[in-house]
């Protein structure tokens, strides 16, 4: 192994350096200057994002524990762009008085979890998968409990860490049985030896249950809404978009590379979970009044749609899933960005507060409308294509009933997404949220989301590019 081999894990190495750099710079800032870390951290992360797009080496390191392929690089880049948007959007909130002394820690914790996700995406064995998963959740719990003066924040933190520890335990029990029956923790060896013996099926069920907790699929979703509501808005958006995207991605990879020999079995399980997740997520979203809770349940339903791509079990499914995650990042971050901007300035998070928003803040309203349309999958915007490709992949696998249920659910979701639009445009309100202007960085973050929703939808090269990369994975 030569020094040049480390270029293969460029993403992770640069991120680790960033974490340490922020830590060291913070030590040299006086108490009154702590906010200066904001532009520094954002520009450093911007450089990292740009470097990520430069052509990179692919290959394996550490005897197969770490793998880089074109698809993992793409996924990491997608996550980087998402995190960059969140960093831009979070500036207004971070500059508030109450966060005065712990701004740098926000960046350190956030970037550490991103390191974990990157290692998780690149993992070639179950140990790195578990380690990445934990690195992505333990600092997250601290971020969820970031706001001290709100007891809800601490409540979100403890709910997150206890439920994630339980799910890790279940996941690990499955992994130990997998190790016992195959004698290896490496994906390639396990994949070659896996069969449909009852114990191995049981091991898979434990594994899947643990992962379902992490992506908050029904019936393992109960912790999600409380955690989403209690955490600071920007942490919630990070949670619902970046964490979920990374976990869903690695779940697909493992399902196809390791458990392909029992695919006929897990497809039934995923079928059931997909139907439950879409339906229950939607039904709960219908009755939410808090915007964060509303998006939490709608994001549970969206995770159900992602399962359609997994179940399709073909190349289109993989491409469609990555494409959907890309679209979902921009649309959900757009919606969360608006909520975050309003919450940071006024502290209002209830849906009733959004009545008549168009009259006072037309730009924010338009972005919210665009994001919500994209989440619902209304034709001209990107979200429509994301859902369309997922449905195509499931239909080409012969799952017509599943597609029917999914379309039905998409219609229900259209209703509650339109409720938000109705509140902003039509509902009358005597005391609407007054006109305000966020700082320049927040506005950049919001603008990028709007741009992304349009560009990905209309520029077909994006889909073709992902399609080219996934070819290598499935075969």
């Amino acid at each position, binding site marked *: 192994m030569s020094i040049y081999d480390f270029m293969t894990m460029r993403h992770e190495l640069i991120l680790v350096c960033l974490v340490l750099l922020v830590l060291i710079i913070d030590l040299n800032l006086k108490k009154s200057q702590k906010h200066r870390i904001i532009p520094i951290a954002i520009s450093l992360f911007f450089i990292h994002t740009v470097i990520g797009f430069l052509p990179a080496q692919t290959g394996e390191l550490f005897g197969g524990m770490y793998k880089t392929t074109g698809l993992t690089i793409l996924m990491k880049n997608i996550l980087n762009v998402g995190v960059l948007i969140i960093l831009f959007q979070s500036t207004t909130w971070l500059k508030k008085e109450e966060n005065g002394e712990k701004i740098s820690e926000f960046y350190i914790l956030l970037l550490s979890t991103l390191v974990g996700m990157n290692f998780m995406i690149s993992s070639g064995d179950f140990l790195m998968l578990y380690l990445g998963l934990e690195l992505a959740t333990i600092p997250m719990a601290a971020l969820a409990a970031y706001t001290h003066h709100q007891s809800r924040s601490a409540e979100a933190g403890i709910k997150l860490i*206890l439920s994630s520890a*339980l799910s890790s335990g279940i996941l*690990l029990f499955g992994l130990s049985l997998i190790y016992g029956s195959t004698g290896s923790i490496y994906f390639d060896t396990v994949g070659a030896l896996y069969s449909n013996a009852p114990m191995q099926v049981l091991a898979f069920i434990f594994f899947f249950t643990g992962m379902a907790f992490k992506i908050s699929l029904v019936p393992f979703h109960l912790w999600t809404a409380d955690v989403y509501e209690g955490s600071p808005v920007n942490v919630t958006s990070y949670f619902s978009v970046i964490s979920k995207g990374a976990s869903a991605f690695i779940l697909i990879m493992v399902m196809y590379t390791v458990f392909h020999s029992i695919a006929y079995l897990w497809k039934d399980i995923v079928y059931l979970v997909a139907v439950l997740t879409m339906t229950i997520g939607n039904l709960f979203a219908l009755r939410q009044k808090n915007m964060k809770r509303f998006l939490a349940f709608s994001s549970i339903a969206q995770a159900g749609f992602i399962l359609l791509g997994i179940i399709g079990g073909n190349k289109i499914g993989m491409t469609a899933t990555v494409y959907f995650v890309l679209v979902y990042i921009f649309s959900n971050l757009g919606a969360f960005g608006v909520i975050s901007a309003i919450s940071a300035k006024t502290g209002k998070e209830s849906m009733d507060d959004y009545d008549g928003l168009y009259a006072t803040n037309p730009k924010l309203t338009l972005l919210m409308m665009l994001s919500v349309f994209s989440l619902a999958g209304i034709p001209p915007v990107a979200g429509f294509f994301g859902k369309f490709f997922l449905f195509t992949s499931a239909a080409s696998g012969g799952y017509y009933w599943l597609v029917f249920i999914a379309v039905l659910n998409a219609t229900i979701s259209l209703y509650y997404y339109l409720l938000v639009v109705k509140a902003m445009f039509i509902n009358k309100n005597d005391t609407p949220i007054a006109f305000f202007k966020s700082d320049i960085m927040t506005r950049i973050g919001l603008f990028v989301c709007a741009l992304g929703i349009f560009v990905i939808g209309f520029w077909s090269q994006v889909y073709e590019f992902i399609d080219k990369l996934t070819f290598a994975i499935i075969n």
Partner: protein
Amino acid sequence: MTGSIPLQYFLVISTLMFFTGIYGFLTRKNLITMLMSIELILNAVNINFVAFNRYLYPQNLQGHFFTLIIIAIAAAEAAVAIAIIINIYRNFRSIDVDNVDEMKF
């Protein structure tokens, strides 16, 4: 040193311990005791890994190292969880789940 003890005995212990931990997690109402149930679950997993490693695949140390990493992560997890529990205690003056429920469905 294990003599004639079959592998299955270890698996029975760890499985029973695992489900005891799950039972504790479901019935306990105090945050710290819930954390203790999780430690039981992780410990059961560790016994599994170690026994498999020793009995079936002693040619390398994969199970051994998996256990080592789990122990380290459990320590980190416990530290963060207890930090949050202390924070909750400051806010609620209680660490029972029934009192920590500002948010409802």
